[in-house]
Structures are given as C-alpha cells and as structure tokens.
C-alpha cells in the first residue's frame, strides 16, 4: 500500500520536471520584458484605460460588498444551523416561502443592476464615441497572421510590430487614432495599459484611440485566437515625447543609406524570394505579404516580438524562422553560410 | 391507449385523459426546434440582401412561384379533409384526399426543381456564384428537404392505405404527421415572403 503512493509521487515529480527540462530559448525576451512593467489592466496611462478602471473600481466594490454579505450569511447559516451531535432527530419547522422576503431580495438587486447599467452605458459612450479631432494622428493597423503592419498614411511611413506614438498631455490631449483592418482572419489589438481590446476583423473597419500621457514602452499582443502562432503575435507601443517622435518620423521617411560594403548581401536579398514578400524602400523589393524591412534595425524585436533584434537572432530567423516561431508562414530560406552572413550584414544596415 | 385503461384503475384513467397526448407534444417540440433552425437561414438571407459583390441579383432572376405555392398551401387543406375522413373511418375518402395531398406536394417539388434548373443552366446562379446564390439555395433547399421528408412519410401512409392496413385506430399518428405537413407549409409562407417579396 505504501509503495503504491510512492510510485505515484515519483511519477508526479518526474512529470513536474518535464516543463523545466523542456525550457526553450527565450531569445533575450525575458530580459527585455523584465525591464518593462507588467501589462496590468489596472496600471493605466491612457484615457480609455483610465475610464475603464474607474468603472471597474466601482463595479468591483459593489460586487465585493455583495459577496461579503451573501457569503457571510451562507457561512453563518452553515455554522449556526448544523445538526448537533445530541440531536433529537425531529425535523425543523418547514418554511415554504415568504412573499415579502422574495420581494425584498428581488427589488434590491434590480436597483443595483439599474445603477450599474447607467454608469456602464456612460463609459461605453465616452470611450467608443469620441469625435476624431482634426489633425489627430491616424495610424492604419493591418493585422496579419502573425504580425502587425502599421501604416501612417499622412506621414508616408510603413513599419511593423512596434507602434510609435507621440506622448499626449493630460491637459491638452493629442490622441492617436488606430484604424483596424485584417488581411486574413480575426485578430484583436490589445495593449492593456493603454485601452481595452478592439477586434480586427476582415471585411470590417473598426477603430480605437489612445492618448498615453506617460512615455515608455508598453507591451501588448493579439487578443483573438488566430491560428498557430497566435501566442507570438506580440506588439509594442513606444510612446515618445513630441520631439523624439518627430525625429523618429523623419528618420523613417528617409530611405535607408546605401552601404557599398554589404553590396553582396543586398544582391542576395534582391535575387532570392525575399523580394516577393518584403518591401525595402528605394530597392526593387516591394512585397506586401511580410513586414516592411526598410528600417528593420530601428525595431527592438523581430518576428513580432519573439526574439530581440540582434545579428545572431536575425541569422537564426532568416535561416529558419520555425526554430523561433514554429508555425511562422515565412519559409526557411536555405541559404549557404556565406550568403546568409552577407545577407544578415546587409539587413543590419537597414536603420 | 384505449386497451390500457381496462388495466389501470378508473381514477388513473380519468387523470390520464386530462394530460396531453405525447405524439402531439412531441411534434410541437420538433416544430419549435425546426422553426429555430429555419430562422437562422432566414436571418442569413435577409442579412445578406444587397451584399452580393457580383450578379446575378434577385430581381434579375427570381419570379414568384405562384403555382407551386398554391399547390403546397392547398395540400394543407386537403390533408385536413383526409384526417377528418380517417377519424370517421371512411377509408376510401381518406385515401382519395391523402393521394391528392401527395400529388400537390409532388407538384411543388417538381416545380422547385424546374425553377432551379432554369436558375442554374439559364441564369448561371449556383450556390457558389455569390452571397445571393449561397443564401437562396440553402434556404429554399432546406425547405425542399423538409417537403421531401414529408412526402416520403405521406407516401408510406399511402402505400399502407392501398394495402388495406389503415383504419381509424391510427388517427393519432396520422394527425401528428399532418401537423408536420402544416408546419412545412407554414415555413413556405415565410420563405416565400422572404425570398420573393421582401428580397426582390
């Protein structure tokens, strides 16, 4: 009998080791993520998230009070009305019901619900229906399996996975409006500290807005199951003071500088299938299926947040993306070592 | 059921009389669930009206099937006459009205088939052509499937009648079948209005 339990305990211990033993490479993301505060819903820095938090605080308070009252009554009744050991076995008085009590505990919840409905509706309209001020920054977000495309139509910029927006001021806000479209299946744009999530659905135009008033980097990810690599469709929002943002815009608007020393790498890029999927402004590459690589090196991460953007990681990614992101739609490029090195050297100049 | 009451006590038999018949409750439940099923196809049809990206469009190719409709709705009347005859145990009258019901239903199916033939080969509308094609064939087709099932059951009863097996003891089950048939006709009213009136 004792040996039986021992066998089970050992089996559980062994099974428990499996997750640890199977730990894969985190491609430097653990470090990077640790330097960013967790994406807690309650840690809001933008008006939509603030509004939601105010409402949430109210609702959670009400539900907590309800819980304490009802659970308290339940606990009391379980303790008070338990059958005692020396009990005479007679049945307690049978109470069939009470109309006044039923009325009371119907009316009170109805009133609570009415209050909740009213304040909920108010927040819905505040967040969903603001007018778009003229001159507000508009970003066109196109969700793909499994990466984010960001186009700034007014500014002529196209980038991917990392969204730069200007810092807004609490007194005179400068919101950024996001127009959401999908190139394939349903996705959802979610950066918890900035706003609630809004689904990105093919054949439907949705929009949302943010006005972050604290500079920094905010982590988000796709919030609607969209296939194999839904888990790794991450995104970062980089909020910068106006001056920094303008500088970023200016840099993005330039085509990348041509560096003769990586000429061979550039030729590898332009002569293989890369050009079918990727765009690099100023070159022959104008594919739209994959992210725009014009200013690849200004991004912190690659693969929609699956790895830090370093030469080594780029090499792994280009050689076979499925090492980092098993379901990725980008095929392994099967380049020879020299071609691979040169190509990555070329990519490293795209800033 | 009549035989059973000689075995159970009189009070229980009296009590049993006050309860509804299981066949009718069953068929009403089936009608409820089938109505929910049809509603979804109707909703899809109405939702997609005007949303097809390419033609052909409803007003180009649809013409109200008046004859089919008249036949199908009349068959509801003839089946009522048939049931009345069966209740009175006039099997010959029952057989005549039952046969007419079958014939009218068959006309409806044939007419629908001819309409589909024209739509597919002449107008080039199939289920994959556009949204209109998808919603039209699925809705009308679902109804036609229910008509087919009804007709098969009616045919079965017809054959049993021809072979001399039907009598007034089968009134309850036959009545249940007639309720199904009435449901199928009622659905056609909805489908007709949706497709040929609202949708054009």
């Amino acid at each position, binding site marked *: 009998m004792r040996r039986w339990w021992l066998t089970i305990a050992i089996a559980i211990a062994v099974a*428990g080791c*499996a997750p640890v033993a*199977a730990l894969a490479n985190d491609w430097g*993301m*653990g470090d*990077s993520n640790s330097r960013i505060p*967790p*994406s*807690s819903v309650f840690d809001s820095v933008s008006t939509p*998230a603030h509004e939601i938090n105010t409402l*949430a605080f109210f609702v959670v308070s009400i*539900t907590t009070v309800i*819980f304490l009252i*009802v659970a308290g*009554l*339940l606990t009391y*009744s379980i303790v008070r*009305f338990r059958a005692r050991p020396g*009990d005479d076995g007679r*049945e*307690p008085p*049978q*109470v069939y*019901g009470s109309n006044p*009590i039923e009325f009371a505990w119907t009316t009170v919840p109805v009133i609570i619900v009415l209050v*909740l409905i009213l304040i*909920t509706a108010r927040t*819905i309209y505040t967040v*969903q229906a603001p007018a778009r001020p003229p001159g507000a920054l508009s970003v066109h977000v196109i969700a793909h399996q499994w990466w984010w495309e960001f186009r700034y139509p007014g500014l002529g910029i196209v980038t991917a996975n990392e969204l730069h927006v200007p810092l807004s001021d609490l007194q005179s806000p400068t919101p950024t409006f996001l127009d959401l479209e999908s190139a*394939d*299946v*349903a996705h959802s744009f*979610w950066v918890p500290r900035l706003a609630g999530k*809004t689904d990105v659905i093919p*054949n*439907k135009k*949705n929009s949302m807005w943010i006005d972050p008033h604290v500079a920094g980097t905010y982590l988000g*990810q796709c*919030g609607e*199951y969209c*296939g*194999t690599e*839904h888990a790794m469709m991450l995104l970062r929002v980089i909020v910068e003071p106006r001056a920094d943002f303008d500088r970023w815009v200016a840099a993005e608007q330039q085509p990348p500088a041509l560096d003769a020393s990586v000429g061979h790498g550039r030729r590898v890029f332009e002569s293989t299938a890369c050009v079918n999927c990727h765009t690099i402004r100023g070159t022959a590459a104008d594919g739209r299926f994959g992210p725009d690589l014009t200013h690849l090196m200004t991004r912190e991460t690659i693969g929609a*947040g699956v790895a830090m953007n370093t030469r080594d990681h780029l090499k792994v990614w280009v050689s076979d993306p499925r090492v980092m992101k098993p379901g990725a739609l980008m095929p392994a490029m099967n380049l020879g070592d020299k071609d691979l090195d040169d190509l990555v050297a070329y990519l490293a100049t795209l800033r | 059921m009549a035989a059973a009451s000689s075995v159970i006590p009189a009070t*229980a038999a009296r*009590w049993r009389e006050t*309860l509804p018949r*299981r066949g009718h*409750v069953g068929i009403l*439940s089936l009608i*409820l*669930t089938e109505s929910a099923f049809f509603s979804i196809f109707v909703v899809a049809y109405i*939702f*997609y009206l005007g949303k097809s*990206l390419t033609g052909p469009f409803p007003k180009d190719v649809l013409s109200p099937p008046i004859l089919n409709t008249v036949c199908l709705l009349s068959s509801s009347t003839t089946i009522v006459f048939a049931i009345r005859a069966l209740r009175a145990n006039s099997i010959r009258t029952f057989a005549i009205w039952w046969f007419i019901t079958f014939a009218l239903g068959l006309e409806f199916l044939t007419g629908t088939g001819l309409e589909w033939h024209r739509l597919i080969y002449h107008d080039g509308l199939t*289920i994959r052509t*556009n*949204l209109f094609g*998808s*919603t039209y064939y699925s809705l009308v087709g679902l109804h036609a499937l229910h008509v087919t099932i009804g007709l098969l059951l009616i045919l079965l009863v017809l054959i049993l009648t021809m072979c001399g097996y039907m009598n007034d003891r089968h009134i309850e089950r036959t009545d249940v079948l007639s309720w199904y048939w009435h449901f199928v006709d009622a659905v056609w009213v909805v489908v007709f209005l949706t497709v040929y009136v609202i949708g054009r």
Partner: protein
Amino acid sequence: MAGSIDHEIALGAVDERQSLPILGHIHEWVVTVDHKRLGIMYIAGGLFFFLVAGLQAATIRLQLAVPDTGIVPPQVFNRLLTMHGTAMVFLVGMPILTGFFNYLVPLMIGARDLAFPRLNAFGFWLWFFGALLLYFSYIGGDGLYGAGSAPDVGWFAYAPLTELPFSRGNSTDYWILSILLTSVGSTATAINIIATAFCLRCEGMTLNKMPVLVWLAIVVAFMMLVALPPLSAAQAMLLLDRFLGAHFFDTQAGGSAILWQHFFWIFGHPEVYILVIPAFAFASEIIPVFSRKVIFGYSVMVAASCAIAFISLSVWAHHMFAVGMTPAGNSFFAASTMLVGVPTGIKIFNWLGTIWGGKLRFKVPMLFNLAFLFQFLVAGLTGIMLAVAPFDWQLTDTYFVVAHFHYVLIGAIVFMIFAAIYYWFPKATGRMLSETLGKWHFWLFLIGFHLTFDTMHFAGLRGMPRRIYTYQPGRGLETLNLIESIGALVQGIAVLVFVINVLCSLRAGKAAGNDPWDAWTLEWSTTSPPPEYNFAEPPVVRSRRPLWDLKHPEDPDWKYE
C-alpha cells in the same frame, strides 16, 4: 407504497441477470431502451470523456507551468485546447446532465419510462458515434493537403479561420460533423423530456406538484430546442462554404465573420445555461434533504428559472463586446446580461432560505453542494464584472474569462455533478459510495480548484490572453501560472480518488436500501436499483413531497401548499 412488493421480484431479476454470460450482458445494454440504463450509459460515457479531456487539460497546464516550454509544439497545443473545450461541453457536460434527467425524470413523476424510449436509445447512440467521430479526427483528420488531425480552431471555431484557406485538411470538418451528430442526440432527449413531463405524470401530480428538478428539466429541454439549432445551422453553412463553395463566412466575397459569431453565441450563451440549470436542479433536490427542510419559495424558484431561460436568449453578444458593435448595441447587451443576474441571485437567496433554520447534515453530497453555493456566487459576480462592457474590453479573451467560466463549469457544474453522483449512486446501484474517500475527494478537489482558478483571474488582469501555447518570461506571469498548474495536479489526484471510490463501491459498497438519505421524492419509494418498470403500481400523490406525507401523516405537505 408500491416499493416493498417489487423487492423480491427485483432481486430475483438481478440474480438471473448475473448468471448470463458477459456477451449477453453487453447485448442487453446495447439494445436497451430503458431510460435508467440509457441514463447510466450517458453518464458513464460523459465521465469517460471527462477523464480524456481532463488529461488534455493537464497537458495544457503542464505546458504553461513555466514560460517558453517546448513540451508540445504550438500545433499540438492548439488541438489540445480545441478538443478540451469541445469535449468538455459536448461530450462531458451535455451527456452527464441529460443522462441524469434521463434517469430521474420518469422516476420522479411516477412514470414507467420516458415518452419515447426508442427515440431515447437512438439519441444516445447518435451521441456516442458523434463522440467517437470527434476523437477519430486524431487518426483520420489528414485530408488531401496533409494538414489535418484533430481540430485546432478553438471550441467556438470563429470564421474565417475555419474557412478552407485557413483550415486545410479535414480537421474542422470533424469538428462540424461530430457536433451535428451529438446535437441531434440532445434534441431527441429534449423532445423526450418535454413529452414525458407533460404527458406521463402520475395521478395527482399537477405541474405545480412536480419536483423542482423536473421543472428545470423542462426548462432546459425547451432551451435545447431553441438554442441548439442556431449552432447546427451555422455549422451547416460552414460545411456548405467548405464543400460547395458557398460564401456565408467568406469575407473575400462580402461574407461576414461577425455573422458566425452572432449565430454561434445565440447558441453559445443559452448553452451555458443549459449546462448550469441542471446544476441548479440537483441543488434544489439535495439542499432540502440535507437541511431537513422544504425548498424555500418553490414557485419563485420555478419562475426565476423560466426568467433565466428567457432572458438568456437575449444576452449573447456579451461575448462580442470587442468586435466593434455600436455603443447602443453594447449598452443593450450589457443591460440584458446584468438583468439575468437578478433571477440567478434570487435562486441563491432561496437556497440560503432553505438552509436557514434547518438541521444541516454534512454528508458528501452536501459538502459539494455547499461549495457550489459559494463558488457559483463568485462566478456570478465575476460575470457581472464581465457584463460591464468597458471592463470586458480589457478582460475578454484573457485568462480572467477562462477563470470565470471554469468557476461556473467546474465550481458550479462539476461540483454539482459530483454531488448528484454521490446522492443518486445508491439509488442506481444499490450501494453507497464511501464517505471517507468521498471526503478526501471533496477536500482535494476543492483545494486544487481554488489554487488554479482563483489565481487565474489575476493572470488575465496582468495581460495574459487565452489560447496561447506559451508566454514569455519577464511578463509577471510565471508564478501565477505555476500555481495554477500545481492546482491542476491536485485536482487530478482528487479525480483519481473519485474513480477509485466508484470502482471499489461498485464491487463492495455498503448496501443502500430504498431511501438512504431519508428523502421525499418518488424515486426513493422504489427499490435500489429500481426494477425495470420502476413502480409496480403507478403512485398517487397529493403534494410536492409524497414521501414526507407518508413519513409525517400528522403534518403532511398538502395542508400547507
């Protein structure tokens, strides 16, 4: 009462059955139309898939215990989460709960069987083959394109992910076809329950004198009739898209992905009430018996359940708050969702009213039932939080929602399934389950459940979306997920204890007798297990608790009702 006369006859019949060879035994069960046997088959089948889907959940939790593990690749993980969800709803929840209604409704109304016994058997076997078909996808799912195996589109299979370009092979088709089959089975059961409850009640049992469980069975049956067709219709449309080139959800041809969501949730939300109302039904039978008091507010309980059923048909888009509906649309569904909380709360208060002033006996069924009360309260309150649409914009599709619905599915429904099994197992088998093992089962399961699902709320609030095969370190999610996984392990051990309890008690459990719990509804008046014909003479009743009247002739219920 009729029970004692049947006793010897029943015993004799049992002896004869035991002398048949094993094949004869199996044959009896395969051809049976007896509602009791079919009920047991539904429950046994459901418990089998509970273990299978539970192992799938255990694998999921193993993978998520630590960030960036590679225990299973994403493709396998996505199949696990789809199969876990689909199986738990259609192959565990539905069959077990309808299995109980199958077993209990005729007994509780003094009938011999359901209204349509052969339809009952037909429904069961359809369910069974549908269940096999779903899991057969693991072997047979390789379609023409080599992609396939089990479905991996999530249990609600949103379009256009399920359309041909994004779901190659036949895995999605297995999802569609198996559920179409099981749904026909459920519809058959629903028709049967309604016809039985309306047409086969014993003498004196007006609708107003039926046990609460039977009322709620009727409510659930009506909901199934109305809510299952939208899913079947949507699935038929998806099948037409995938096989005949229709464009129902083909966004490239102007089709709407949102339409799928509407159709699915018009089914999906009533479905969760279809799953939870049977739990309410069990609670309404078990709490009175173990509090030694009549149910408080019988009419209100019935009315509230009808209200829940009705309102629940109008709340579906609270699953879609983030899709971009208009503010008016969002407000309407937020309002209706909060409104459905009112009759639900009333039921909790009425159970509290039943306990109040009673003499509580803490047998295992009651332990599970008491935990249900607290847990369902919490689940309802997190539901209110989710009903507040703006808050839902943060919480939807995160582990907060996963925590909420597991609180309902496990904390309320599974706990009540266990309560019901401990309560009615003696009636069905003639043997008691072990109280000691039952208490171990209860406490281990309670601890494991809370470890996992209390913690899970916070993972969602910290930004962890659902249906992800892994998460990166440094997001503040590691500790939470590890605790959740440990809790899953504890729950697994508890279920193991339960399985041992059932197997040992089937062989050597204490003899139960007709009425081990001193209860008051008709099923306790016949033998344990009941003879095939249930009652030698059809009972005659005068009140809602016929056995109370017999046991307390000086103070019968019909004086007060």
